[in-house]
C-alpha cells in the first residue's frame, strides 16, 4: 500500500470580508470541511470553477496559508510542525502564469538556484551544476542560464518554473493550472514533460485545472469542489464514465471536445450564479441543480464514502426516497 503523502482532515479556511465602514464584516468560507488524502505517485486533480476554493486549498496544503480549522499532514507530519525549510523540501508549487511567477530582475540560473541557496548550499559550482542538470531535465538549453525571463517564451518560462520547483527534488508538486496560460501547441509539451518527470522522479502531483480534458488525460483521481466544499471524488475513469453529483455531470457535459457533430450541450444550470459570501441554504448547489428536490434547500447533504468514491449529495446518501441513476 502506497504511503500517504497528504492527509487533510476537515480543513476550513475563512476570510473576513469588510463590507464597508459601517456594514461590518462578513465571513467568506473559502474552504469548508474538506477531507483529502493523496497517496504517493498519485495525480490528484482539483477541479471546480471560480470561487470553489481550489486555489485556497492548494495554498493551505503548500503551507502558504494557515487553515482556520482542521489539520493537514504531509508525509505523516503535521504541516504546523514542519520547519519552513523542510516544508520547502517536501512540497513545491508551479503556478499558472509564467509571466508573473518569475522575478523579472533575476537571471534564469539565479531563479532556479534560489531553492538551493535557501537550503544553505553555498558553493556556487555545486549550485550551477545542479541547476544545469535540472534545466536539461526540463528541456531548457543551458545557454539560457544567464538570460532574463522576458527573453524567453511562455513555454520556456513555464519550464523554468518547473525546474525551480524540482531542483531540490521534492516529494509533492502542486500545479495550479500549469498550462492554461500557454498556447495549445506548447500545452501538450508541458503536459508531456510533467508526466515524464513524475515517472522519473517518483513525484506526487496535485493538479488544479478547469480543463477537464487535460484532467482526464493525466489525473489518477479527481476531486470536484463547489463553493468551498468537496462534492465528489473518485478515480478518474470512474468519475468520467459515471459521474454522480449533478454538478460534476454539468461540468463534464460542458467540456467541449473537438467533435463537430455534437453541438453545444445544454447543461440546464440556469442563469443564477453563486455568491461565495452569501451561499445558498442547505446544499450550496441547489439553485442550479437540474435534479433538485424539496429538501435540498433546507438541509445540507451528508457525504457518502463507498469504495474510494466520495459524493456529497442527497441523491446518494439514502436520505431521499428516489435514487436517480
Amino acid at each position, binding site marked *: 500500500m502506497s504511503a500517504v503523502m497528504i492527509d487533510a482532515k476537515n480543513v476550513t479556511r475563512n476570510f473576513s470580508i469588510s463590507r464597508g465602514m459601517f456594514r461590518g464584516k462578513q465571513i467568506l468560507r473559502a474552504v469548508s470541511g474538506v477531507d483529502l488524502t493523496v497517496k504517493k505517485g498519485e495525480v490528484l486533480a482539483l477541479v471546480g*470553477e*471560480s470561487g470553489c476554493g481550489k486555489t485556497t486549498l492548494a495554498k493551505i496544503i503548500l503551507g502558504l496559508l494557515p487553515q482556520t480549522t482542521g489539520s493537514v499532514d504531509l508525509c505523516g507530519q503535521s504541516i504546523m510542525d514542519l520547519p519552513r525549510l523542510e516544508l520547502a523540501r517536501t512540497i513545491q508549487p508551479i503556478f499558472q502564469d509564467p509571466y508573473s511567477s518569475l522575478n523579472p530582475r533575476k537571471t534564469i540560473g539565479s531563479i532556479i538556484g534560489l531553492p538551493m541557496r535557501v537550503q544553505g548550499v553555498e558553493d556556487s559550482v555545486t549550485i550551477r551544476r545542479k541547476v544545469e542538470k535540472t534545466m536539461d531535465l526540463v528541456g531548457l538549453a543551458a545557454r539560457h542560464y544567464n538570460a532574463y525571463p522576458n527573453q524567453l*517564451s*511562455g513555454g520556456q518560462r513555464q519550464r523554468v518554473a518547473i525546474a525551480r520547483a524540482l531542483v531540490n527534488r521534492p516529494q509533492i508538486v502542486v500545479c495550479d493550472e500549469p498550462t492554461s496560460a500557454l*498556447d*495549445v*501547441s*506548447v*500545452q*501538450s*509539451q508541458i*503536459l*508531456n514533460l510533467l*508526466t*515524464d518527470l513524475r515517472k522519473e522522479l517518483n513525484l506526487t502531483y496535485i493538479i488544479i485545472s*478547469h*480543463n*477537464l*480534458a*487535460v484532467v*482526464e*488525460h*493525466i489525473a489518477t483521481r479527481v476531486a470536484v469542489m463547489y463553493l468551498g466544499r468537496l462534492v465528489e471524488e473518485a478515480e*478518474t*475513469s470512474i468519475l*468520467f464514465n459515471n459521474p454522480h453529483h449533478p454538478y460534476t455531470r*454539468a*461540468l463534464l*457535459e*460542458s*467540456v*467541449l*471536445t*473537438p*467533435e*463537430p*457533430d*455534437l*453541438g*453545444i*450541450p*445544454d*447543461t440546464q*444550470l440556469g*442563469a*443564477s*450564479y453563486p455568491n461565495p459570501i452569501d451561499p445558498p441554504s442547505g446544499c450550496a448547489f441547489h439553485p442550479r441543480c437540474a435534479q433538485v428536490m424539496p429538501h435540498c434547500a433546507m438541509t445540507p447533504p451528508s457525504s457518502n464514502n463507498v469504495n474510494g468514491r466520495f459524493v456529497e449529495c442527497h441523491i446518494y446518501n439514502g436520505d431521499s426516497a428516489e435514487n436517480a441513476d
Partner: protein
Amino acid sequence: MSDRVLDVKNLSIDIPLAEGMLHAVDGIDIHVDKGETLCIVGESGCGKSLTSLAVMDLLPKKAIRRLERLDLAGASILDYSEQQMSDIRGSKMGMIFQEPMTSLNPAFTIGNQMVETLQRHRNMNRVAARDLAKRMLEKVGITAADQRLNQYPHQLSGGLRQRVMIAMTLLCEPELIIADEPTTALDVTIQAQILLLLQELQSEFDMGLILITHDLGVVARIATRVAVMYAGQIVEQGTVKQIFDNPMHPYTRGLMRCIPVPGKTKPGEPLGSIPGMVPSLVGKFTGCRFAERCDHVTDACRQSDIELRAESGETQSYRCIIDAKEMAKVA
C-alpha cells in the same frame, strides 16, 4: 451574393516597429454569410485579433491596413470615414470582446449604456429604449432585468457581464457579430451557456457570426466554417467537418494531435506536440512560415511563397505544396 454579410479580400496589416516592419497579417480572404458561423482559430500572435480589429477599423494608429475589398452586407465600407465607421459599429456590426469589464464603462449603469446605444443608433426615446433594453436582457437569459438595468458592471459576475455585452450588441440587430475569445475568461459551465446563447440568437436574428478563438473544442461545436491562421496567414480553411475529419495542413494536423480528448486519446500516453516557435514576421519573409516546424519540409518549401490550394470543386483549401493525395498518405 445578397446573403453575404462580410466579404474581405486580400487583407494585410503592417505595423512599423523600431526594428523594422512587422507583417502581422498577410493577404487573407474571409467571408461570412447570413446564418453562418466562421471560426478563426489560431494561437497567440497569429493575427486573428488584428484581423477582427481591421474589419472594424479599430487598429492602432500606427498600423497600416491594406485591403482590396471590404463589403458589409453588399456595401463597401473600405473607404468609410471615422464618422461613418462609428455609425455602423454597434449598429450594423457588433463586437464582443474577451473581457467584458473593459468594454463596459464602469462609471455608468447597464441601463444607461444600453439606452445610450439605442438613442444614438436607432433614435429611440428613453422610455422605448429602456423597454427594449429590458426585453433584450431577458432574451439573453438575465432574470430580474429591471434591477439589472440599474446595476453597475462591477456588481455583476463575469458570465452575467458577457450576457449583457451580447444583449448590448444585439440591440441594433446587427448583420454581423464579431466575437473575440468571448468565453475564454469564463468558467467552463458558463462558457457552454454563453455559446449556446450566441448560437440561438444568431439563428433567430439570421446574423453572420465570426468567432475568434484558440480553443478547437469551441470551434468544433459552434462553427459552420473554419479558418486556421498561423503567422499572419490563413493556412487552411473549410467546413467544420472537413477541417476536423480531414485536416490537411501539417499545422492543423499538429494542433489536432496536441489536444487530449476524453474517450479518444489514451490517458497517460504522450500528447502530440509541435516543436519550435513562430518565426519573426519582421521584414521580408519568403516561403512557408511553418517550414521550420514541419515534419515534411523540403527545400522547395522555403524558396517561394505558398498559395492556398484546393482540389477542384472542393471548398477546403490549405497552404502547402504537398498535394491532397500525398497528404492523405502522410501521417
